[in-house]
């Protein structure tokens, strides 16, 4: 199956948001670039037919994680030196190493390609079959995530309070 025009536009938006993340000085603009990328990826998932994943992407990533991030950025001191000087001294070696990695992966992707799909259709990613399978087969991991979230709440409180709760 070939990629259509919407997919190209969404991919361009995603890469553009990622480039904004690299170039922007203020963390708030970096966060907005990341939000643009995440929304574009949600569009890509919807274009693929994975509507459930697209909704999760918007709800959990854009709705929860990035709102948290934006609140934290608003709490920070804007005169921080890392807001002014964006890049560390690893700029050139880092970009060179990642460029080599991308060249290697790209050569593999173009040279070998991707094996043709054996199964067609994304029907399982619609809400009804997904929820049925989710609660019938994957209920144990689902319940374990709630345990994980409780552990995270306790751990976050422990990290913030520190030893003996001296910071209140």
């Amino acid at each position, binding site marked *: 199956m070939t990629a259509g025009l919407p997919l190209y536009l969404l991919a361009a938006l995603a890469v553009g948001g990622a480039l904004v993340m690299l170039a922007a000085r203020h963390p708030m603009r970096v966060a907005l670039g990341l939000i643009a990328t995440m929304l574009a990826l949600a569009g890509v998932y919807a274009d693929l037919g994975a509507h459930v994943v697209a909704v999760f992407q918007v709800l959990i990533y854009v709705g929860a994680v990035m709102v948290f991030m934006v609140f934290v950025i608003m709490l920070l001191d804007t005169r921080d030196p890392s807001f002014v000087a964006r*890049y560390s001294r690893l700029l050139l070696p880092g970009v060179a190493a990642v460029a080599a990695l991308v060249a290697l992966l790209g050569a593999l992707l173009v040279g070998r390609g991707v094996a043709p799909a054996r199964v067609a259709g994304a029907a399982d990613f619609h809400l009804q079959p997904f929820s049925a399978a989710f609660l019938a*087969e994957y209920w144990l991991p689902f319940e374990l995530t709630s345990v994980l979230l409780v552990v995270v709440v306790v751990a976050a409180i422990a990290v913030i309070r520190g030893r003996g709760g001296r910071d209140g």
Partner: protein
Amino acid sequence: MDRTQFLVALAIALFALGLVGVIVRRNALVMLMCMELMVNAVVLLLVTFAVRAGSTAGAAYVFLIFVVAAAEIAIAIPIVLLLARQRRTLDVSAFAELEG
């Protein structure tokens, strides 16, 4: 261009941009956001191949990854805030003696 190949290329591009961000940026919060970008690129790969295989397990797994990523951010941000409170800066070069 084949759709799967295009999406794999997009995931490689996003992962590489996130990796560059983690390496070159100085602000600890920006580095965290670049790590989120890398996670997103990997999730894009997972969704691409799960859709191709028509597997419900892929969708369930993506949901679990989202929850774990949210949990990871909920722990990482307090740690960054504690470091920032201690050193009065978010510049990671101020934390150089944490190594080892």
